[in-house]
């Protein structure tokens, strides 16, 4: 049996927020349940063809909660029955901004998503806004809904993207905000990138790499000192610590050997691409359309766009710089979408290379200290 298939599925391209740095082109498109059946049939065909026994579907949008909970109830049954009939196993993971959350969501979150939701929030929040609302309005509603979800026993994890003010307030304040004030003990920090249609916010999204690197190192240090022993998990530090202490880890997608071999994204219109940013904003990089293709296997096999992603790590090795990096095993040239949106090409290494190296060094050193303390 092959490795599990990771599928990022965007059943709706509609959103209830208006975040200034969002890379997605929003539309009112959504998957009908008939379309979902047809899509899953082709995904399961592909799993059979490739001898893949299991799949994880990462449900994202648009915003997931612009569809009703009943839609997910039906979707869950459709997928469960289809997978069972093929002897396959599918699990589900939910990513939502939580702006549309209410207690009506609790049963399906429990049943379909293991009572867990991944959400997003920045600190300080400057760019996440409600439709016709402010960042402060967004903060207030988000905090209220996340609080209610946690009250209902739902585990809430978060993704945060640092901005200029994050770096200014510093890692300690950032850590306190998430862990102590919000009580979120599992979150990851992603580097920003200006995907999608340009705007003024995106033009100013890039941060000084040295300063951002220092922020990451400071945050990692705070986590090593206060967090990891108290079951606080912060990505990517936790994965790096696992890697350096255990020799293996589930690294984030930006550092996988080749993301093109590991997951695909399908949107509500059937477009297939590498991940959510590519599928929503860069049609020239679509692998094809699943509703028009006879099979997912053939679509992936014949896609010239996908070939470009598959070839990227090889091209980076040929160029020479990455092959001499002592952290090659951890990074493989980094994220294509960050490279493309910041450098306008796929065939350069990730623009955050320097930051990654600083962080890898720091976590390697930190893991040595932890290992020697353990023994």
């Amino acid at each position, binding site marked *: 049996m092959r490795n599990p298939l990771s599928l990022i599925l965007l059943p709706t391209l509609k959103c209830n927020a208006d975040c200034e740095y969002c890379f997605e082109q929003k539309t009112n498109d959504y998957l009908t349940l008939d379309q979902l059946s047809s899509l899953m049939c082709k995904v399961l065909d592909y799993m059979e063809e490739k001898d893949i026994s299991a799949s994880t579907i990462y449900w994202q949008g648009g915003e997931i909660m612009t569809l009703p909970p009943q839609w997910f109830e039906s979707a869950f049954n459709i997928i469960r029955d289809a997978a069972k009939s093929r002897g396959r196993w599918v699990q589900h993971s939910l990513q939502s901004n939580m702006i549309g959350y209410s207690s009506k969501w609790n049963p399906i979150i429990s049943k379909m998503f293991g009572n867990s939701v991944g959400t997003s929030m920045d600190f300080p929040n400057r760019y996440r806004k409600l439709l016709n609302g402010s960042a402060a309005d967004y903060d207030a509603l988000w905090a209220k809904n996340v609080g209610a979800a946690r009250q209902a026993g739902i585990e809430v994890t978060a993704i945060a993207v640092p901005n200029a003010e994050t770096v200014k307030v510093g890692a300690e304040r950032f850590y306190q905000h998430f862990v102590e004030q919000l009580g979120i003990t599992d979150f990851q920090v992603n580097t920003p990138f200006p995907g999608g249609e340009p705007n003024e916010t995106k033009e100013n999204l890039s941060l000084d790499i040295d300063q951002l690197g220092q922020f990451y190192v400071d945050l990692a240090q705070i986590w090593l000192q206060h967090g990891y022993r108290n079951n606080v998990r912060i990505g990517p530090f936790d994965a790096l610590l696992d890697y350096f202490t255990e020799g293996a880890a589930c690294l984030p997608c930006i550092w996988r*050997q*080749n993301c093109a071999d590991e997951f695909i994204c399908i949107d509500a219109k059937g477009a297939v691409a590498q991940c959510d940013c590519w599928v929503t904003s860069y049609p020239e990089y679509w692998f094809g359309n699943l509703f028009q293709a006879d099979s997912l296997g053939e679509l992936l096999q014949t896609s010239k766009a996908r070939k470009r992603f598959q070839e990227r790590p090889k091209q980076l090795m040929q160029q020479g710089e990455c092959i001499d990096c002592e952290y090659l*095993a951890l990074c493989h040239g980094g994220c294509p979408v960050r490279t493309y949106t910041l450098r306008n090409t796929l065939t350069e290494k990730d623009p955050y290379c320097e930051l990654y190296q600083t962080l890898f060094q720091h976590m390697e050193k930190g893991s040595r200290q932890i290992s020697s303390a353990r023994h």
Partner: protein
Amino acid sequence: MSVVYNIPANHVTVYREKRIVLRIRNSVELQQCLPAIDQHNLAYVQWFIPGSSEDNAALQQIEAPLDLVLSNPGVDFPCLYDYAALADERPLRVSIPVVPGFGKAVKLAVSLNCAVKLEVAQPDPALIAELAEIVRFYLHQATVTQTIEFFHSLLGSFFRQEPITLWEIQEENPVYARYVTEQGEETISPRFSGANPEFFEERFQEELIAGQAECCQCDFLAQCQGYFKWPDRNYRCDGVKTIFQMLRDAALELKNDLVTHDAGLEP
């Protein structure tokens, strides 16, 4: 241990009752020999890379451990990305000849979670320098989590003071390794082509000692047993001795560290 025959695909039926390593060069060869393969006697498959996308797709039909043979490592090393996912499904090793630029292939293979076997003959000073760099990489780089042979077994041998020879590590022990050429000739491995295995089993090392080769005074004779004296018996081993020395020093350092640690002191 029974003899293991490394055979080309067109000899599968001839060696059907024997323990084999099967060399396959492409999907056509695989299709031809697949029905005749006795999985029970198949140690592993040697697959020559880079191959075409059709050849790579055919690899899914093999369940046995795989040894990917990268003949031109300095140029073709990026192709390892095409095979990396196979490491999640079965034991996977990359065999890399020690030729200029081989170090890049080693670094990438290890970074892709593949074990490595170096195919070494009589390296010149430039290659010794590259080998030394890779020994340092193997010994000290925190991201190396896979074995690199022959370093790994030698290090273990020095550490545990257990006898093992390069001939065994490199699967070239003339007692049980047979390489069958495309023409059906049996030898030890490709670098011994034309030579009789029995000569190496019985007389080669004796002749080296009798001939006063530098082996007589060599600290590493127990592990090497003349491995680097073929095909040129006059090959000077100063360079390869530095490689042995690095591994022996590392084993000693590791031992000392463990003793210090067990005594409750910081190494």
